């Protein structure tokens, strides 16, 4: 059973979002990190990059393959988690505190189209 935090929203591509004001913190879920296995590299955007909901913004890589990261929101990247450059495995250890990027959202209402914890849990069970 993967861990799902109640107060987050989720994309069906397994990214999570925490929106505080107009700042969204984004990472991947426990389900995703478990499915990937040992993460050896996180390909992150640069501060200042524009991201769009539904478009890829980077990748998470296991030994075997690269897995695209899809942005759950649109806006400007204001911070990336530099700790992941040297220690990508932090995402496996705690995928909820080891976020990947922070975005200043251009449209806070986009979050309404994302799944809540219960709906996301259903997807993981399928």
């Amino acid at each position: 059973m993967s861990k799902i935090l109640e107060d987050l929203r989720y994309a069906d591509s397994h990214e999570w979002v925490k929106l505080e004001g107009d700042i969204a913190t984004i990472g991947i879920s426990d389900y995703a990190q478990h499915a990937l296995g040992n993460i050896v590299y996180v390909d992150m955007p640069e501060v200042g990059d524009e991201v769009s909901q539904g478009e890829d913004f980077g990748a998470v890589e296991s030994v075997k393959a690269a897995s695209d990261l899809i942005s759950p929101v649109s806006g400007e990247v204001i911070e990336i988690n530099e700790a992941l450059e040297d220690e990508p495995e932090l995402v496996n250890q705690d995928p909820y505190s080891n976020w990947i990027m922070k975005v200043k959202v251009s449209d806070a209402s986009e979050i309404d189209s994302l799944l809540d914890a219960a709906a996301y849990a259903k997807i993981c069970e399928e």
Partner: protein
Amino acid sequence: MEENLTKTCLHDRHVALGALMSPFGGFDMPIQYKGITEEHNAVRHEVGVFDVSHMGEVRVKGADACKFVNHIFVNDVTGAPDGQIFYGMMCNEKGGTVDDLLVYKVSDDEYFLVINASNIAKDVDWILKNSEGFDVEIIDQSPYYGEVAIQGPKAEETVEQVLNIPVKDIPFYNFKTIHIDGEDIIVSRTGYTGEDGFEVYGSHDFTRKTWDKLMDASVQPCGLGCRDTLRFEVGLPLYGDELSEDITPIEASLSMFVKLDKPEFIGKEALATQKADGVKRRIVGIELEGNAIPRHGYPVEIDGKQIGEITTGYRSISTGKSVAMAMIEKPYDKLGTNVEVRIRKKTFPAKVIKKRFYDKNYKK
């Protein structure tokens, strides 16, 4: 499991061990048990065992066996002592690769061919079609044989002590046929990892007993995930990536296995011409400067122009470097050439190096 996949004789054991299973070459195969990195390191530093029962086996017997093998195979098996093994390719008329394979010389009129799982039907068809006019019998023994590969610096002591099979005196790239438990098994000092090791061919029953003994002795089971990372590090090709019907052995930088001084073989003219004219493209090694990981299919560019493509790439588990094999157009294949690899939307600087990223540890 997908409908049309074949199971090897060890399938139930992999499932019971909780292996991550995935289709490969028409078989439902274990990709990893504990984790690719752990299994890779077990083979590099101790010992691991692979289920390679998906591989195909074809026996060629008859008065024309040597002549026929030399007709379809680019390497030269003439005058070899019994027990010797050759690596090489079967090529088509254009010099492209039908398959890469091992040829085991049993006797002057008997050879045992070991072929890739993904090419079994194609190869058997090719061999049969080309055997017309030769006094040979072709027997597809792929369904009969199971096979395990025990690989690593401790492989010899493991096979001797856990399996009670005497292998100490088998030289590298040689094999023995041994009678055990009422059947003839084949053991060769061969492998696909760059470490010392053995490949053991027997009936399904024997293969199951062998695997169980190794599991009881706590030998690390290893899947196709680390099989690829291990062969890649030491520069070995994978059919489908570095070799194909459109890639010749010379383009794959494997011309040492093509014996152009043989009187004839399928593909000889095309390969001789290619050698004389020089290839237009070649498989080489690529090393990236940073941590980004090159993968199969990623473009290789110079000044925005594509000059090649990655065939296999990884962050090397043994060296920690981001490296790849790539098919690069001449003249950019020269060692030291500065290139760029396009990974998703960005390009990363890299340079052309030798494709042996890690030194082999064969017992020669």
